């Protein structure tokens, strides 16, 4: 028996979409390879930004609980410990989602519509010593402290001053680690000033125009060598600094996790502002491949708050495409969510993403 909608990923985008679609009467199944739903939300122990309609001031973890409650009320089926390992075009218009559960047994779900809400992965950074134990993604460190309650180390060097680098540094400090420094190869801090200021006032230096030269240690991280760089990002001789640390976190950006969209034959565009190669989509969040929708970081790296708004748009659009929502009704709902998105992408900091997103939709119309 075919499903109406299979959503891959139970993060903020996937769950928000599930709730909207299920409320409209769509039979929704959400699959997620993790043991608990919520994606990154349950790692976000800080209060969210935005406005009241974006649940501003509430901690990500609590937004996660609210979403789960809504899913429960809307009778969304969530399959955990379930990894989608492929999507295949089956006969007719249906799509087969191949899944495996925790015991590694396999089965498949035939569905009319697929929503890919697979999120993002952390970008790697290669330097001598990056394969030593103790070097890890900032997101991985955040998972360790906030989900598993394990502190990865006692003294940390953070590479990258985007919001992820700044927030994870703060949370590592909350977990009791010393942050030796946050470094960034660019001359300016990548993340928001308020996140930076929270660190600097506790004495954590944020060193712009600095890069990692090498990490050394016998069988784990023992020291990190850092140097100041000139305008061409070349290290300046004599500017080397040595940090005695046991952990080095890498926070040099995220990329959309889009293999399923690639294999599904979706068209992509390269927009570095959104994290690289991103599936082209229209304002309903549908890709160039019929019945494959996307929402959240896979459609361009942004925040959880925008991911939820995009998820809602996708959920509403899918309900409309399945004939469960009247067009006028769907349009009004979508316009409302678009207004929220527009507010979240406002101001000089949001403008780049706003323009990139608009470009993506324009490209869809050319495809």
């Amino acid at each position, binding site marked *: 028996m075919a499903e109406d909608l299979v959503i891959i990923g139970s993060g903020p985008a996937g769950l928000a979409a599930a709730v909207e679609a299920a409320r409209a009467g769509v039979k929704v199944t959400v699959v997620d390879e993790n043991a608990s739903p919520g994606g990154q939300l349950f790692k976000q122990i800080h209060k969210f930004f935005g406005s009241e309609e974006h649940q501003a001031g509430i901690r990500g973890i609590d937004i996660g609980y609210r979403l789960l409650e809504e899913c429960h009320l809307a009778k969304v089926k969530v399959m955990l410990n379930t990894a989608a390992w492929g999507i*295949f*075009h*089956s006969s007719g218009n249906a799509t*087969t989602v191949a899944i495996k559960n925790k015991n590694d047994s396999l089965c*498949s779900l035939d569905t009319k519509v697929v929503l890919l809400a697979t999120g993002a992965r952390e970008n790697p950074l290669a330097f001598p010593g990056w394969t030593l134990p103790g070097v890890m993604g900032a997101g991985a460190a955040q998972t360790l402290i906030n989900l598993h309650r394990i502190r990865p180390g006692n003294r940390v060097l953070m590479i990258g001053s985007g919001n992820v680098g700044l927030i994870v540094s703060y949370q590592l400090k909350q977990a009791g680690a010393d942050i030796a420094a946050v470094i960034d190869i660019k001359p300016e801090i990548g993340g928001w000033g308020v996140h930076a200021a929270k660190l600097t006032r506790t004495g954590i230096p944020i060193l712009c125009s600095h890069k990692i030269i090498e990490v050394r240690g016998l069988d784990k991280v023992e020291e990190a060598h850092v140097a100041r760089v000139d305008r061409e990002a070349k290290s300046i001789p004599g500017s080397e600094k040595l940090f005695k640390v046991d952990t080095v976190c890498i926070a040099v950006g995220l990329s959309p996790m889009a293999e399923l969209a690639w294999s599904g*034959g979706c068209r992509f565009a390269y927009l570095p502002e959104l994290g690289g190669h991103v599936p082209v989509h229209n304002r309903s969040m549908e890709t160039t491949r019929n019945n494959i929708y996307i929402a959240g970081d896979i459609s361009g790296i942004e925040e959880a708050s925008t991911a939820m708004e995009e998820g809602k748009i996708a959920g509403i659009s899918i309900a409309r495409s399945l004939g469960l929502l009247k067009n006028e009704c769907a349009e009004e709902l979508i316009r409302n969510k678009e207004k929220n998105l527009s507010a979240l992408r406002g101001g000089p900091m949001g403008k780049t993403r706003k323009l990139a997103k608009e470009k993506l939709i324009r490209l869809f119309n050319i495809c």
Partner: protein
Amino acid sequence: MKKSAQAVIIGGGIIGCAAAYYLAKEIDDVILIEKKCIAGESSGANYGMVWQQTRQDGYDLAAARRSLEIYPQLCREVFDLDIEYEEKGGMTLFFTDLQAEAAKGYVEYKNSLGVPVRLLSGKETRSLEPALSSRVTGSLFCAEEAQLNPFYTTLAFARAAQKEGATIYQGVEVLSINLDRGAVCSISTSEGKIFTNHVINAAGSWAGTVGAMVGLKVPVFPHRLQSLVTEQIPKLLTRTIQGSRIARTSEEAAKTFQYAYDTTGGNRPCINQQPPAECIIESSLFYAKPTVNGNIVLGTACDFAGYNRETSYEALAVIAHMAKMIIPRLKDVNIIRSWANFDPWTADGIPIVGETGVKGFFIAAGHGTGMSHAPATGEALAGLITGSAAAIPLGEANINRFTGYREEC
């Protein structure tokens, strides 16, 4: 980009690269043009078998045997890259006594053609490959067969060709082949025009597209083969093995080796002969190739799906099923990837090699068995173009065997 050449080869697969090497040894200004990258299609995604037991009598077998002679010498004297060539013998498994019975006649026939293939019992087979299950009731084994790394071999030919002075352009597409009074005079590419009097169509599954540029119907079709690859594991198999179809009736068993007998029965295949609309599962043939790195490549499910490169859920599952039945110890191994490649297919299973009715336009395509044929084909083609003596007769591989190939397309 160069403005002229004595010969231009279209296609950077194993056939094109081998042809480039042998031609460049004889003449100056050989250019090879490849739309994607060297070994970017089937030549980078096959089992790397250099076999003779399954080749048909005539050009097919002659080319395979000649290649088996040449490869060791190329490895010693020419290639600057280890192509992982190993003469470990080839093995075709069967699973019922009926198949073993049917194979007896096949062995006699092949021996009469000089192919040193022999029949092994189940026990003898397992003494060579202990990982095989007791379902394997016997095999055909030919010691004078080899396996190689198809990607490295193609690359080695490409490098050898460059050393002999050939120029290779990757990422360049051929847009048209221009004729002057019925003879090739130039080609237009995405990077410019090249004047030449010799063009070799070595475009594999895309040979039809290239043929159409000079008004020829070249009946080569993409045969989609799907494969799986495992994670790296400790050594389980010594050599590449092939499983015959699993037969349940005597009728099926008799058909099992039919593909390897001369199937055309002397009839000329027709240009309009379209590939059969096969069901994946019924035409799956089992292959397992142990790679030097410890991965095992498993296949294959075959079908005709145009140029659709996607793999199918059903096909992957059936390959895994065959693998588990034949090599039970694979059951706990992880599958990390699948792929599909387009094996060039012709109606009689024999490639198309030689001249055409268009002066200066040659074909070397349709090799479902490129690794077994490449050195011999390259050598023979170079001989044909430069007018030197042929090591093997090309006659029956000519496109003329297809009736109607010069009809307007």
